[in-house]
């Protein structure tokens, strides 16, 4: 095994993406699903930084990754606030309990 190539990063990203999606579907806890989302976003970040580094387009990739990180943070903040609100009503964050609206 020689040096680390672009391919390694991309495979890592893909793995992260799959783990993230799986987490979102499997977890019943809202925070768990949020963690799945973060995994997918980080997969994107890994890709962006790797591409930026290996394909040489200045710092575009890194800059984009920074934006994604910021978005992830904002999203987490909003999501947690909404979870709190949900918790106030049902004293749980089990997403399967939220099936009032359907049909």
């Amino acid at each position: 095994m020689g040096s680390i190539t672009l391919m390694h990063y991309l495979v890592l990203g893909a793995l992260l993406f799959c783990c993230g999606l799986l987490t979102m579907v499997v977890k019943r806890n809202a925070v768990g699903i949020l963690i799945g989302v973060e995994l997918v976003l980080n997969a994107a970040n890994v890709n962006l930084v790797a591409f930026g580094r290996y394909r040489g387009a200045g710092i575009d990739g890194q800059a984009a990754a920074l934006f994604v990180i910021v978005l992830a943070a904002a999203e987490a903040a909003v999501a947690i606030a909404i979870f709190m609100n949900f918790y106030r009503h049902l004293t749980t964050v089990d997403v399967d309990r939220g099936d009032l609206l359907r049909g």
Partner: protein
Amino acid sequence: MTMFAPLAGIWMPSPQDLRLFGAELSLVAAIVALLVLSMLFGRSERLGAGVALAAAVAVIFFCRDAAGLVDTGARAALTPPGAASMLVADRFTVFFKLLLALFLATIIWLWMTGAAAGRTGGEVRPVPAGPEFFVLLLTSMLGMSLMVATPNLLVMMIAVETASLPSYMLAASDRRSRAGAEAALKYVLFGATTAAVMAYGLSLLFGLFGTLDLPAIAAAVSVKGMPALGWIAMAAFLVGVAFKISAVPLHFWCPDVFEGAPVEVATWLSVASKAAGLGLLLRIVAAFGGDVPATIALPLAWGVGLVAAATCTLGNLAALRQESVKRMLAYSSIAHAGYMMMAAAIPPAAAGDATVRPAMAAIVSYLFVYLLMNLGAFGVTAMVAWSQGSDRLAAFTGLGRRAPWLAVPMSICLFSLVGLPPLAGFAAKWWLLAALGQGADRHSWLWWLVFVAVINTAVSLYYYVRVIRQMFLADDERLERLAVPVGGLALANGCAVLLLLLGTVAFGLMRDRSLAYAACLARAAPESVVAAQDRLAWNGGPEGMVVNGADRP
């Protein structure tokens, strides 16, 4: 002045550039002002409404100003010389900003009507509390304005998030409501998921083409072809867009959120969020027009067409059995998004081709008409829900007698949603189908979309008329007349009158206007493709770059 010397080399936007984006800037100013003012003067709802209304007026003013500036075609703006533009201003963006601003004003009107009714009537109804409601409303509008005004994938994503994050919170703005809490939870989780997938698609596209500038990507694709991974990346990116449009299979959030959220928010999301999503989709589709070869344009068109057909069919079918009118309207909004997407599926033939224009014009005019129809229908539903405490079908019983000035405009809006003449809904749908039929001269598969649209229209008649029947044919003598706030009457009847006028007298006017707006987008795209050819950063081209692991920095 020596103090500013280091700044000399830094690019600064020209005053004209700033004028082009005066609408966005005034929204930002209003948001900041609202936050500061509520700190200074306390949490006043009226203050919030006033500032938001002022912001809407300012946006309309700046749009008028910008409309004069962009009259000659697309303009890249807020861009240092030589760089790819991050934001554009053209007639298309002006149209959307105007549409959003008008709609924002009517939503605030609706909110004020509800608030006034809540104060005097004492009925239990969700009044979103505090100025943050308006901060969120304005922020989501800022995001939506940006969504239609950028050719850059990263900015698109940021704009989508800027529009989505406040929307999640808006859905839960009535903190007493359990349904609202649940709606917001589903909304945020579904939205975060799609945003993450979108980001992943974006990262892959960046890797494949070395740029996030959409015209540059389109140019690269037309020169070098699209690798298989490119399609997957593209689809992943479009997931985020489809989420905003609530296209099948990313529509799941829509009915639940609309039912759980306060009426004002549901109305806002049903039109504004979808309009912005469609605008974004149109920009992407237009970028892949022009010189892009059919091997790339056609699968894209097919994908959009397939999703459109599925969206409007599923929306209509699911609406059939709804007992909650709000939920029925949510499904109907899914169906209408499907109709509009159909026109986006018409593949452009060649650079400067004319057929793309009627398609775009059809969507532009449909959006405007759709705004009126939905506003009217949701508005009446809100009045009924406020006074009856329920938005079930049963609450509409005998409305023709109990509140004729609500029942008649409601019927007009519903008939217009079906697409019956002489209402504007008919004209809009007619142009849409005509555009499809025209496109079908070259791509006969588009006839299938026409067929699906016509069948769906027939199906939709059933559930819209169900409401009308409930209002006029079912009656219960024991039910009393409804006290309806005057503001609500004005809103509903105003929408109905406009629908009638647009369907008859202003028929030609609407068509000419929308042609003008759409022509701009269609013209802008090919030009920017040519310009983008020079900006290709990835000289190696897409082929072999991912599989070839030997790439080294």
